[in-house]
């Protein structure tokens, strides 16, 4: 995790921050969803508590905490309580493996009387060389929380909901996994960082030995894999159990599906898992098909670097001047302009780019939910097995043939 106390501390704090980010996106998304649905359906939505209804979330959280902790009779206590905890794990572990921005290079610096560094901090929870397989594997554990919740509740509808949900998740996992083969054929790596770096340039490929270059477009996966991107995104909807694929929660048939018997904070934990999955889905979509944190020729690293250099150099003299009197000598160095601060600022600018892209996809999740009606269960299974799986196969074969023809000399 690190060679000295500073590195270990930064890495651990970063990981906790990323997890908190995932947990904190839930109330925000719930607010966006409620306001957005109201906007789509020409209603008001929550608008009484605080400005624009924003503190509604806080009120909800307080309400969640003070709800009764209910355990239905004949339920299996241990599994009943373990299921919501299990719901948090897959999304959190998967999200921490996705790079949220470029790695930060820190040169040697002096702090508290000793020399630290140099360090290289990745802007993600942890860097795993085999990122894609790891994320797929960890998110495939999500089926357990559904099954455990449905079975432990000792409720017929919960069990049906859990079975439907897990059958649906595993069915769409096939199309999901297969649509990624096209991306792997193109980029030939499992590593998210390498995939993003490969997309961070102008669109260029060789076409029968001729170099074709479109300088005004970034080299994003979606331009090579449009079909794969569509299949991936649709399968991700099913993985998150979101409308139009939210059969496990079909209120008219199953009360509330696998979490019928849950209430209060435990119910909320299932929501954290679901919205965490949406976040992971959007982040993966951005990483594979939309260039991750990079913007290709539209916003190169040099531009951002220059910009942050200018910002740091113009701001830190002001801070040093303002902070001049009350601080001892050793603290003044914190506010001086240095290459490290430029690097950190650059990384955060690209992190903003990444977040912007992710937010677009999160909004798509919300918009689709309030636009499309729900499928029937047989239609859902037919779509997964008979439509998306063959199309994903066709996409794989087509990509393999095209790559073979293009790259063969």
């Amino acid at each position, binding site marked *: 995790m690190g060679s000295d106390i500073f590195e270990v501390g930064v890495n651990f704090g970063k990981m906790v921050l990323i997890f908190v980010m995932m947990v904190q996106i839930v109330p925000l998304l719930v607010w966006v969803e409620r306001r957005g649905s109201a906007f789509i359906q020409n209603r008001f939505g929550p608008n009484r508590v605080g400005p624009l209804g924003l503190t509604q979330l806080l009120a909800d959280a307080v309400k969640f905490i003070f709800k009764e902790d209910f355990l239905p009779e004949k339920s299996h206590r241990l599994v009943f309580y373990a299921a919501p905890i299990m719901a948090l794990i897959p999304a959190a572990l998967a999200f921490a493996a996705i790079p949220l921005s470029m790695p930060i290079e820190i040169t040697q610096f002096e702090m508290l009387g000793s020399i630290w560094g140099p360090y290289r901090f990745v802007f993600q929870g942890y860097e795993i060389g085999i990122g894609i397989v790891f994320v797929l594997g960890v998110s495939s554990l999500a089926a357990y929380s559904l099954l455990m919740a449905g079975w432990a509740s000792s409720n017929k509808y919960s*069990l049906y909901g859990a079975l439907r949900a897990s059958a649906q998740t595993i*069915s769409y996992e096939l199309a999901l996994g297969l649509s990624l083969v096209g991306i792997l054929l193109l980029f030939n790596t499992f590593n998210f960082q390498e995939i993003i770096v490969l997309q961070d340039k102008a669109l260029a490929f060789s076409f029968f030995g001729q170099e074709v270059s479109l300088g005004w477009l970034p080299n994003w996966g979606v331009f090579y894999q449009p079909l794969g991107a569509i299949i991936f995104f649709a399968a991700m909807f099913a993985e998150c159990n979101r409308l139009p694929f939210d059969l496990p929660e079909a209120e008219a048939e199953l009360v509330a599906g696998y979490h019928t018997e849950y209430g209060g904070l435990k119910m909320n934990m299932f929501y954290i898992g679901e919205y965490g999955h949406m976040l992971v889905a959007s982040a993966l979509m951005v990483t594979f098909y939309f260039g991750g944190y990079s913007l290709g020729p539209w916003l190169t690293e040099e531009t951002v670097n220059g910009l942050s250099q200018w910002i740091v150099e113009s701001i830190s003299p002001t801070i040093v001047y303002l902070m001049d009197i009350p601080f001892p000598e050793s603290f003044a160095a914190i506010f001086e302009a240095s290459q490290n601060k430029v690097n950190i600022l650059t990384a955060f600018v690209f992190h903003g780019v990444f977040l912007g892209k992710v937010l677009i996809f999160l909004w798509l999740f919300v918009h689709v939910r309030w636009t499309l009606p729900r499928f029937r269960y047989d239609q859902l299974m037919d779509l997964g097995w008979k439509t998306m799986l063959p199309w994903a196969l066709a996409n794989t074969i087509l990509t393999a043939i095209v790559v073979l023809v293009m790259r063969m000399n």
Partner: protein
Amino acid sequence: MSQLIPVFALAGFVIFFGILLVLVAALFGPKPKASKMKSMSYECGLVGEGQETTKVPVKFYLTAILFILFDIEIIFMYPWAIAYSDFIEAGQGLYIFGAMAVFLAIFIFGLFWEIRSRALEWE
């Protein structure tokens, strides 16, 4: 091994956080007296049947086992996709394509046989 330490740390932290939430919910919630009717599982207000009598179609089992088979086939395509360009550069492009073409032919035959044999029909 050392690259796994953060993974374990995060998993431990998440489990700790989850247990904390469950404990908080158990501590702060009101604790009214449990009654027989109240603690019954909620099945639309009828007397709960529980899960013993629940009959589930064998389709779920079939779906799960077919999923495993196709999942294994798909996971074998991953190393192939990774090494594909290496083989092409070494001048063995047709060989590696043919190797996977045979495998894919079996895969496609299996998939279409499942569809034809109505194993994937849900009525």
